[in-house]
């Protein structure tokens, strides 16, 4: 019997268990904040200002902190999202016109539980149900770009203003990019089999008729499956962050990539787009680069480029989109991210 099948079935027991787990989580988070300084400096007698100590402290402290944050964020988000489903989203978008449809699709892209591995059947399902292509693309752009993990981590590391900027910018790019692509009359650049697909069978809504213990179970499973997938990215990200934190002088970045460098955002997007990582892997880097004086607009652009434009997803989407549309998609989203980067560098300084 796995952990997920031991979730209690009565409501008071469920609430009690959740409260207990939450208390342990808070305890571990607080302990992590004090433990490493004490252990490294006092118990092991390491020099607190030595580079090795600083890097090591950054690495263990951040690994555990981000690990705990991820567990908490993914669980809560998945629990809330289990009340939404892609089927319901499609029903809400069916028959909407462009404009309002693009705005709704981008918003729903944030709240709908969706794995980019399902991008192709979702695309076919939306289009076959009469959702305009541009509206469908707004959904597909918003979904990975406004990432719940990124939102949670930004909120705890940089506060609500930066988080609001990130969400707003992501929505704006998804709405505008989807609308522009829709205006281009891109139906001819969609593989013809998409329009020939007939929806058979009856639709099931996976979000309906779930008991609360099943929703908890889905949350636990999702935490395990995401952590299994992203831990290498996370360790590489924190490892790089730790090295930069300890060894790279602040003047290095402010000289070469600071607000004064007109190409900073372009370079950040050019580096970020081909990189395939998870928001959780990028965040430790973003944090340490921010501490080293890199402007927030550049960093947000870098993060968006990493999560919104990934090669595996493009390869999947090639099944339904012809190269011309795929190229336009990448081009418009990348330009949007660059524009947002420059805009926020100008606004936030």
């Amino acid at each position, binding site marked *: 019997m*796995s952990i997920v099948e031991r979730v209690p079935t009565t409501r008071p027991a469920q609430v009690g268990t959740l409260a207990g787990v939450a208390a342990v989580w808070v305890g571990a988070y607080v302990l992590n904040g004090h433990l490493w300084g004490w252990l490294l400096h006092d118990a092991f007698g390491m020099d607190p200002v030595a580079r090795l100590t600083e890097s090591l402290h950054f690495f263990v402290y951040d690994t555990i902190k981000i690990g705990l944050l991820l567990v908490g964020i993914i669980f809560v988000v998945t629990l809330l999202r289990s009340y939404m*489903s892609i089927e319901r989203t499609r029903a809400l978008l069916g028959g909407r016109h462009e404009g309002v449809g693009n705005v709704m699709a981008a918003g729903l892209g944030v709240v709908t539980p969706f794995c980019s*591995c399902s991008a192709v059947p979702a695309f*076919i*399902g939306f289009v076959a149900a009469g959702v305009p292509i541009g509206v469908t693309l707004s959904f597909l752009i918003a979904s990975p770009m406004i990432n719940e993990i990124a939102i949670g981590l930004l909120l705890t590391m940089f506060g609500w203003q930066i988080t609001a900027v990130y969400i707003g910018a992501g929505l704006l790019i998804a709405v505008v990019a989807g609308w522009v692509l829709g205006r281009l009359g891109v139906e001819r650049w969609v593989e013809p089999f998409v329009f020939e697909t007939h*929806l058979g069978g009856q639709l099931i809504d996976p979000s309906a008729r779930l008991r609360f213990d099943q929703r908890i179970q*889905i949350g636990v499973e999702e935490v395990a499956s995401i952590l299994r997938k992203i831990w290498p990215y996370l360790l590489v990200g924190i490892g790089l962050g730790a090295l930069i934190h300890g060894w790279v002088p602040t003047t290095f970045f402010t000289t070469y990539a600071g607000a004064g460098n007109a190409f900073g955002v372009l370079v950040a997007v050019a580096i970020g787009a081909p990189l395939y990582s998870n928001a959780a892997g990028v965040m430790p880097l973003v944090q340490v680069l921010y501490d080293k004086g890199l402007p927030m607009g550049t960093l947000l652009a870098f993060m968006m480029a990493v999560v919104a434009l990934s090669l595996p997803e493009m390869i999947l989407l090639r099944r339904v989109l012809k190269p011309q549309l795929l190229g336009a998609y990448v081009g418009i989203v990348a330009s949007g991210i660059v524009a947002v980067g420059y805009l926020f560098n100008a606004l936030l300084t």
Partner: protein
Amino acid sequence: MIIKVLGPGCTNCITLERVTREAIADLGLEATIEKVTDYATIAGYGVMSTPALVIDDQVVVSGRVPTPTALRELLNTHTG
């Protein structure tokens, strides 16, 4: 009973096929398992999140791998 596992070959699709085979063996059911990887066919079932499980042309699970217990319940209700 004809059981179809719908999915383009993602990790979860492989897991779903494995747990389905195990559940069928546990219950001692007579069933053929087919894998459906073609996107048009998958979408034709109205499925938008993979993996999905189809028992006798009826979609019973979509978007996740059910626990072994839940899967056995599903199979039982379909044979009963």
